[in-house]
């Protein structure tokens, strides 16, 4: 039966391909497979599918495939060892195996192997795909794979039982395919229920014997260790939500916040590129409530324990609003950088671990007070405490123009490659300004007259080799946030004011559906921080207000986008980030766990209630059955009893068969029970069609039924 081409085989073939396609999609949409690899596999699969399948694979072909797979295995292992891309290499190898099986898929066992490969791809998808598409694809896969398994099972039975049975089976299988689809749906539903129950109830205790690695991610520019001037201009139209913020106190921030969510910061600039020159990293130490706190300028703690569960900021002398803090929880999508975004001024962060792997996430200080984290790929969830209050103008003025400590020399270093015109401009702008605030304001005022624009055309000066900032300052006087911020920093440094560039996100838009603040990629922004002595670094935003945001709504169907993003957030929160804590919370909400209980045992009263409920359901069911029986005609009930007993022996009445003929058929097949069966059938017909049935008739029918049952018992014992 190898290589047989029947409609059932063709349907099985198509379903095999479909399940592989869905399984590949679970990893493909997450970027787990390189596009060229995916495209090559797709072409080869299509070729394998449309080419005429030979009845059997020749020995030479088998040897060639074995050799190819062997070579690929060696290449995969080598690549995994050399590049540490274990998952990527493994997925490519899996695709090769899929192609190999599709080219040689004559027998049911090969299709079984295809199903196994499909399931491995789905498992890989579960590891790398944190998208909302995964559960949808997984549900689709369950149905498609169940149907493929059913069909392949039928084909395998045909191969096992021989050609004669296979032909009948193929015909009957195609005839019953509607029922098979229904059965596949039911089996998939069983699997889905098992998945949900296990997901919800299986205790989470990650052991962490191995680490995940090589996961895919969306890389967003602007937050790496070096940034080219102009990067942000390309992402200002990207409406992808990259961050969701849930403040501790809701409703106090309106629909739009003005938080400057600090990410990366740079102290050095040259030739249109920002980078780090100062090697000193921010000091981070353990603090109250599990927070990692950033140290202040003098190395002191920025947070102090309080009686409430909310950490309290250490007051800064001469800064009245220094104790105004914002506590919030952030879900940050994996945007390919290791920076945590916290509104200025960040005081502390605390990563919420998702199992044992995330518990290994290590927060560390970055240069220029960045907060960086070593973590497994995928979204990350963390809490932050930031000093949201800002010094008043009077407080800033009170600082005057302090001397710059040696530690901050890098922030005042002259920018190489700039012409003297820049220094002259800075000096001219700040002429007469006696305080640091006045100098900053003077430069900000000058830049405020520039135009915000994403349409950047280099001036002749830049084309001739000058720095792009000079083109911005002297020629075009138009640019986006990076130009404004860079120009401000450069001008300030030219007059000895310590300043640095900060990249991050500006503001957040309230999502009423999910009740959180969403930050889109288009909110990426650049601003500056200026050092004010004991007050620390103070945020200034030289970009005109009109250029700070690019609109809160997604470009298409904003309402739907809000809903989709809220669902995505819930998915991340309750599926990807589902942990023991959430498990216990869920049980508490369902009333299955006492909130006061320490050991998490099920409430006994709920268990009792479930047991009583089940008992009641069984009792009601039994009563209802008895009631239905009682309403039926008594002779029909006796008939059903006897028919049931006869059916167990393999005798069922046909549609076109009278009781008497049915009895005759049984008598012919099994003479020992012929007499009682015949008597019963006659008696039943007499009762069933009598104008009025008497008690004697019923008694006779009962006796006849008892005789049949006794005869069946004797026959069974024989």
């Amino acid at each position: 039966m190898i290589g047989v081409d029947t409609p059932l085989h063709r349907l099985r073939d198509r379903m095999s391909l479909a399940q592989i396609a869905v399984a590949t999609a679970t990893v493909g949409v997450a970027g787990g497979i390189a596009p060229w690899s995916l495209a090559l596999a797709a072409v080869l699969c299509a070729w394998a599918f449309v080419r005429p399948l030979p009845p059997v694979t020749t020995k030479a072909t088998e040897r060639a495939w074995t050799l190819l797979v062997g070579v690929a295995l060696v290449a995969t292992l080598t690549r995994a060892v050399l590049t540490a891309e274990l998952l990527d290499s493994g997925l490519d190898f899996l695709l090769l195996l899929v192609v190999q099986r599709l080219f040689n898929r004559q027998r049911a066992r090969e299709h079984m192997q295809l199903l196994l490969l499909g399931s491995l791809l789905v498992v890989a998808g579960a590891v790398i795909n944190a998208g909302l598409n995964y559960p949808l694809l997984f549900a689709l896969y369950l149905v498609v794979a169940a149907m493929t398994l059913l069909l392949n099972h039928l084909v395998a039975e045909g191969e096992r039982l021989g050609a004669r049975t296979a032909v009948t089976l193929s015909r009957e299988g195609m005839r019953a395919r509607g029922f098979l689809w229904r059965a596949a749906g039911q089996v998939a539903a069983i699997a889905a229920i098992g998945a949900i129950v296990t997901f919800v109830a299986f205790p989470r205790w990650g052991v962490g014997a191995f680490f995940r690695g090589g996961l895919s991610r969306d890389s967003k520019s602007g937050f790496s260790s070096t940034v080219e001037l102009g990067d942000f201009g390309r992402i200002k139209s990207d409406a992808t939500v990259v961050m969701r913020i849930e403040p501790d106190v809701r409703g106090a921030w309106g629909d739009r916040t003005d938080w400057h969510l600090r990410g990366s910061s740079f102290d050095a600039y040259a030739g249109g590129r920002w980078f780090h020159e100062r090697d000193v990293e921010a000091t981070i130490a353990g603090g109250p409530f599990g927070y990692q706190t950033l140290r202040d300028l003098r190395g002191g703690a920025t947070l102090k324990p309080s009686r409430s569960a909310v950490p309290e900021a250490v007051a800064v002398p001469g800064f009245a609003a220094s104790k105004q803090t914002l506590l919030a929880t952030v879900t940050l999508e994996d945007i390919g950088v290791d920076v945590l975004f916290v509104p200025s001024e960040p005081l502390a962060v605390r990563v919420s671990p998702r199992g044992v792997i995330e518990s290994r996430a290590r927060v560390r200080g970055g240069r220029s007070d960045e907060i960086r984290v070593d973590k497994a790929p995928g979204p990350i969830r963390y809490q932050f405490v930031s000093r949201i209050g800002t010094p008043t103008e009077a407080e800033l003025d009170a600082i005057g123009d302090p001397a710059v400590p040696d530690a901050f020399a890098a922030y005042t270093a002259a920018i190489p490659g700039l012409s003297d015109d820049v220094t002259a401009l800075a000096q001219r702008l700040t002429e007469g300004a006696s305080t640091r605030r006045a100098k900053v304001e003077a430069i900000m005022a000058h830049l405020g007259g520039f135009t915000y624009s994403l349409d950047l055309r280099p001036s002749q000066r830049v084309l001739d080799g000058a720095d792009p900032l000079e083109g911005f300052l002297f020629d075009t006087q138009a640019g986006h946030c990076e130009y404004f911020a860079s120009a401000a920093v450069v001008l300030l440094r030219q007059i000895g004011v310590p300043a640095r560039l900060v990249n991050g996100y500006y503001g957040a838009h309230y999502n009423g559906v999910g009740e959180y603040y969403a930050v889109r990629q288009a909110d990426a922004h650049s601003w500056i921080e200026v050092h004010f002595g004991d007050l620390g670094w103070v945020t200034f935003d030289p970009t005109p207000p009109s250029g700070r945001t690019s609109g809160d709504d997604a470009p298409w169907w904003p309402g739907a986008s809000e809903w989709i993003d809220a669902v995505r957030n819930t998915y991340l929160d309750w599926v990807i980030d589902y942990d023991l804590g959430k498990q216990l919370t869920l049980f508490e909400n369902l009333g299955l766990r006492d909130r006061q209980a320490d050991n998490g045992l099920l409430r006994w009263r709920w268990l009792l209630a479930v047991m009583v409920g089940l008992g009641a359901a069984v009792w009601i069911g039994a009563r209802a059955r008895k009631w239905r029986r009682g309403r039926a005609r008594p002779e029909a009930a006796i008939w059903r009893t006897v028919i049931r007993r006869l059916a167990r022996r393999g005798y069922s009445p046909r549609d076109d068969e009278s009781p008497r003929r049915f009895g005759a058929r049984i008598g012919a097949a099994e003479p020992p029970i012929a007499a009682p069966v015949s008597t019963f059938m006659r008696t039943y017909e007499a009762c069933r069609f009598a104008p009025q049935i008497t008690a004697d008739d019923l008694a006779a029918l009962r006796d006849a039924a008892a005789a049949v049952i006794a005869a069946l018992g004797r026959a069974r014992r024989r």
Partner: protein
Amino acid sequence: MARRKRSLLRRALTARGRSLEITRAGWLFILLTLAVGFAAINSGANLLHAIFGAQMALIVGSGILSESMVRRTVARRVAAGEIYAGQAAAVRVELTNLDPRVDVFSVSVEDDDRSATDDACAPVFAVRIGAGRTVEIPATVTLSQRGRHAMPAAVVATRFPFGLFVKRRELPRGAPLLVYPRLVPAPAPMADDPRTDLGDAPRRRARAGEFFALREYRDGDDLRRIHWPAVARLGRPVVREYEADGDRQMMLELRRGTTGDPSFEAEVEQCASVAVAALGRDALAVGLRYAGELLVTPGSGDEQRRRVLAALAVVGDPPKGATAVDA
């Protein structure tokens, strides 16, 4: 303790004639499930927990579904004609779905591979049996020995839904069937045949000869021998007997022998073959003697053929140490 547990498990799996076997694909699936379970517990990855749950549900669901398919299916094998030893005979396999609400999928009736016998029944397979319905599937059975034998040991089996597990339930063997001796190419009945006193008129009509008497009609008598006036007079069927029948009758003589003895079996087969060939002729009456004792009185027609074959099916002394039923 472990041995006792295994024993309990085996007993539970094989209770009431049932057995459960895990196929190679099933073992692979179980291994994959364990691996995913380990990965889920190890990593704490939530989606792996979901996949692990789905796989466990499929394993448990597979077991429950296959058990319900086997439990709800009743199979009977009914001989659809005469059965000759060593030759495929027609049987009808009736598969009944006892459940009035739910369909049964993918059940087969096949020989029990645990019984070592030459007897065999061709497997049959039903893709679907509607709720409360019976399907009849033609098949063949080959029984190697003449005599009274039950159908070969068989099972109702299913690998539904995915072929991961094989669930089987033994079928009752049913009432013994009468297996006629194997038919071999037989020589044409000759006058000098040591087992015949055929005479020299092989092709004469069965009604020829002098009228001898009327007798009661027996099953298989030629309808042309019915004496209709006497039937009308007596009110019961009677047939004519003729004196001259002896001239065209063939009495088969079989020496005493033991069932299973190859030489005796060969003689029985020869005898049966000759009888069938002779009774295929219109004018011949065939009878059978065993060890000088009359087993079947001479007669003709299809019913006589069955009588002779039935006698030959069970003729012979039982081998030493065997019961009559075994023989």
